[in-house]
């Protein structure tokens, strides 16, 4: 009895294991049709993939392509390349590295666009249109049919900016070594900057804090916090969630502001303090020991 159960379980497992072979090949029209019922839920709005067909064809297909694989007719002229939605990997997430973004994340991205890329902000759409487009984007990837989005990271209330917090943020920047890629002055010229590649092997630049461009995944203090705690999946930018405590994360956000060109309270304080870029020759401080 027990044995038979064992075997039948095993057989199911074996059959299921062969199954992914089918999806190793590119997704087909039939795969998409099977997921056409995909929904999104953003606040009180429910999005339906089906309802986004017209908008996608009109506004998105030129870059992201018929099959959502990023191979639209503009592909050859666009750099960075349009996202391949079939992989289900996204830069801008409130969820941990290696997990799917929430519907809200995708909707925010569509509304915001992605700075330093050809993906424009789509602020002409109603919330319903965006929700429908989110469901449509999701229906291209088998992941959204079988996995739930990750649990969004918690962001505690933002504390008051102080000189001590900015100095502490500078220590975090030094300790976890953001400068390896971003450089000590934030000019994207760290020792590892020139060799960075994305997950598809294409060269990619680290973010330059000093030239006034906006982060792709939002430029509020909360957005900055989220960016380094979740990472930008598909790129070299890693998650620091295990290595920066919530309170320290706010210190780091304040320090990042001092590197940016826009005038800010943080920048003014840093100037008063005469804050210098971090010293990379100082001995490394093990985490949790300041």
């Amino acid at each position: 009895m027990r044995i038979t159960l064992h075997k039948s379980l095993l057989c199911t497992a074996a059959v299921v294991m062969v199954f992914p072979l089918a999806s190793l090949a590119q997704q087909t029209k039939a795969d998409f049709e099977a997921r056409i019922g995909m929904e999104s839920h953003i606040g009180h709005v429910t999005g339906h993939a089906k309802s986004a067909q017209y908008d996608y064809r009109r506004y998105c297909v030129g870059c992201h392509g018929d099959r959502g694989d990023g191979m639209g007719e503009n592909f050859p002229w666009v750099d960075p390349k349009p996202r391949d939605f079939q992989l289900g990997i996204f830069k801008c997430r409130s969820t941990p590295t290696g997990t799917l973004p929430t519907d809200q994340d995708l909707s925010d991205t569509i509304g915001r666009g992605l700075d330093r890329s050809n993906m424009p902000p789509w602020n002409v759409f109603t919330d319903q249109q965006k929700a429908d487009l989110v469901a449509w984007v999701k229906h291209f990837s088998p992941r959204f049919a079988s996995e739930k989005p990750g649990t969004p990271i918690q962001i505690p209330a933002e504390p008051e900016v102080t000189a001590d917090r900015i100095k502490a943020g500078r220590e975090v920047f030094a300790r976890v070594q953001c400068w390896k890629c971003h450089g000590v002055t934030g000019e994207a010229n760290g020792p590892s900057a020139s060799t960075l590649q994305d997950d598809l092997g294409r060269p990619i630049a680290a973010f330059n804090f000093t030239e006034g461009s906006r982060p792709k995944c939002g430029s509020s203090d909360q957005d900055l916090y989220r960016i380094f705690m979740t990472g930008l999946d598909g790129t070299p930018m890693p998650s620091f969630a295990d290595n920066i405590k919530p309170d320290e994360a706010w210190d780091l956000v304040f320090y990042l502001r001092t590197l940016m060109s826009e005038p800010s309270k943080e920048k003014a304080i840093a100037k008063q303090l005469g804050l210098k870029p971090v010293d990379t020759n100082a001995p490394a401080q093990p985490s949790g020991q300041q």
Partner: protein
Amino acid sequence: MKNLQKLAAVLMAVMVVLCGALLLTHEVSAASEGKISGTVKYEGTPPHMRGIDMSKDPYCAKANASTSPHMENVVVGSGGGLENVVLYISEGLSGAALSQPATNVPVFDQKNCEYTPHVLAMDVGQTFKVTTSDQTAHNIHPNPNPMTGNIPWNQSQPPGAPPVEKSWKAPEMIEVKCNIHPWMHGWFAVVKGPYATTDANGNYTISNVPPGNYTVTAWQETLGTQTAKVTVSGAAPAKADFTFKGK
């Protein structure tokens, strides 16, 4: 593309039939004491392994000051033994040997700006640990094919960082990189069932194999795979030696 899908469909049909047949038979083996062992050799002149310039990170350069670090794509020992070859059972496993992932926790350490071991083998679903012994920051960034069910992730490990604990959902040879140190390159070899990795002399032993007839596969990251048939019957380990030929 179409062909791949057809292949998958055929494979699935074959699986269903085979499984049906298996369910009808009654032999089953509870104990799993058998072993498969052997040696993997490299025949020919070992390929030149490029040296690594670590000067961009003074910590790494200093840690390797007395050695001359080089790539580890093909590591051949003095007797021609091939290191870092992963051996696993690709056909013939059933029952408990397949359904219970190993319970030990293999460790992948970042040490002197290299991965130790260079290839970490593990079972599907087995928990493994990534640690750092270095006083410089790394980011640990495996890049599986998300269509297999294994999802890429990317985590920083600055000096003193706690271990990262993870597991993988599907069999796959997964490349691991550190974007901060582009020469750092290793593998998570995720297989189904018992496995082994060759030592510096090319020797290996796969333990916990129930008696039966099996196909053993030897996988090497640049030289590819080879297979051999073995029969595990009793106390003495079954033998399977492999030779990878160079150019």
